[in-house]
């Protein structure tokens, strides 16, 4: 698909998956054009670029589309390897990073969604699961500054950090404190927020909570 030169990101402001890409692009100092999509009325470019899923984010590089946020991260890392590398060069360390990013993908968003979408016993179950997930991630982080290591804000960090702005809403909806259950994870989130790329990309937790309120009305959740 030939087209305009440069980098374009098709995205939605609140999407944690889109935020992964924005953070990576910022870390690497890559200039790009951000285009806000209206998911109720998807643009022709989005539908043409991701005909299979019609989902954001989509990264267009010189007109060629790359889809799926973790795949976009790896693409960005491979095309612009020199600044702020996301994945380590050692194959074993890379495999570990891919494993944990996959874990975040499989667990965090799905379980987090249940925290505000469900009530009663199912919500309670989701809460217990989420605590388990947070503790597992905390154990993997250990005493490192970042998941990528003491001096590397890496693949897993970028994959996970956007969800931290949803923590407040998860807590408010399900009635628990993530900090009480996984303090090291919350400390890590605060450290990440000190990075310009993260601070400029993540929205205020209150704003995210407001957005979740809108979603709840849409899905008829009390």
């Amino acid at each position: 698909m030939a087209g305009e030169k440069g980098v374009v990101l098709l995205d939605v402001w609140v999407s944690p998956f889109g935020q992964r890409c924005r953070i990576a692009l910022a870390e690497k100092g890559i200039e790009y054009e951000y285009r806000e999509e209206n998911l109720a009325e998807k643009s022709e470019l989005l539908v043409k670029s991701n005909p299979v899923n019609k989902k954001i984010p989509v990264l267009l590089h010189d007109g060629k589309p790359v889809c799926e946020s973790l795949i976009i991260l790896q693409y960005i890392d491979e095309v612009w390897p020199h600044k702020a590398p996301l994945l380590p060069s050692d194959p074993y360390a890379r495999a570990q990073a891919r494993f944990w990013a996959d874990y975040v993908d499989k667990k965090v968003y799905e379980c987090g969604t249940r925290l505000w979408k469900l009530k009663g016993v199912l919500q309670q179950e989701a809460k217990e699961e989420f605590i388990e997930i947070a503790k597992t991630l905390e154990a993997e982080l250990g005493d490192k500054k970042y998941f990528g290591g003491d001096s590397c804000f890496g693949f897993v960090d970028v994959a996970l950090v956007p969800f931290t702005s949803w923590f407040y809403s998860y807590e408010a909806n399900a009635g628990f404190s993530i900090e009480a259950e996984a303090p090291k994870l919350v400390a890590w989130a605060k450290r990440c927020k000190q990075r310009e790329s993260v601070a400029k990309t993540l929205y205020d937790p209150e704003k995210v909570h407001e957005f979740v309120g809108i979603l709840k009305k849409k899905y008829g959740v009390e």
Partner: protein
Amino acid sequence: MRNALPSFSHFLWTSSIPESSHKNRAMAAGDELKLIGNWASSFVARPRIAFNLKGIQYEFLQEEFGKKSDLLLKSNPVHKKIPVLIHGGKPVCESLVIVEYIDQIWSSSGPSILPTDPYDRAVARFWAAYVDDKLTLQFRPFIREADEAAKAQAIEQMVAALQHLEEAFEKCSKGKSFFAGDSIGFVDIALGSLIGWLRAVEVLAGVKLFDEERIPGLAKWAERFCSSDAAMGIIPEPAELVEFSKALRDAFRSAALPSN
């Protein structure tokens, strides 16, 4: 098939290097290799096919049906699932992560599993992820208790996914034998590993999934894949999997079996 370095050299390492640095050194292509899995799992088939492609030998540790070994639980405490590759004592989990790892460690053996161009790699990763997202879960109604409606819906999803994959095949293969071109690559492995179960579902549900009229490219690709050296002996016969699915359904009924 080229052998991994004999254990003699492994002994040299352990006898002369202090333990802490032995633990921390990077794995080399000649280190001890074990794959935990079973003969029936499509996910396990993926690293096995990758090893075949690269001509690498490994010790295949088959899990006992209905039980999870201590080694599995220790090596994959997070998911407790197969496959797990143990290389020089260190575990790698998740089938596609393992395949990429194999491709990197044994980059100078056999064909490249992933392409070198970053854009082509992104496309290959997309379709492999698509197989995992859209196809692998659809087998559930056939290995557990499920009503006819659930099975019919699963078939519908599979047919739709295979249609998209047919288009992907046409685009990616550019007239050659496999998604990756002349030799088997990442998407071929991701999808090809499922052929046994797809054919088993054809028997169980009485439908044709690899329909030569609907998906001619993939129908021929499936034949080529199964008769390739890399897949030889790894993709089970549909009849074996149909039998095995009965055992899985019985076990699920007794609620004793952890799922794959």
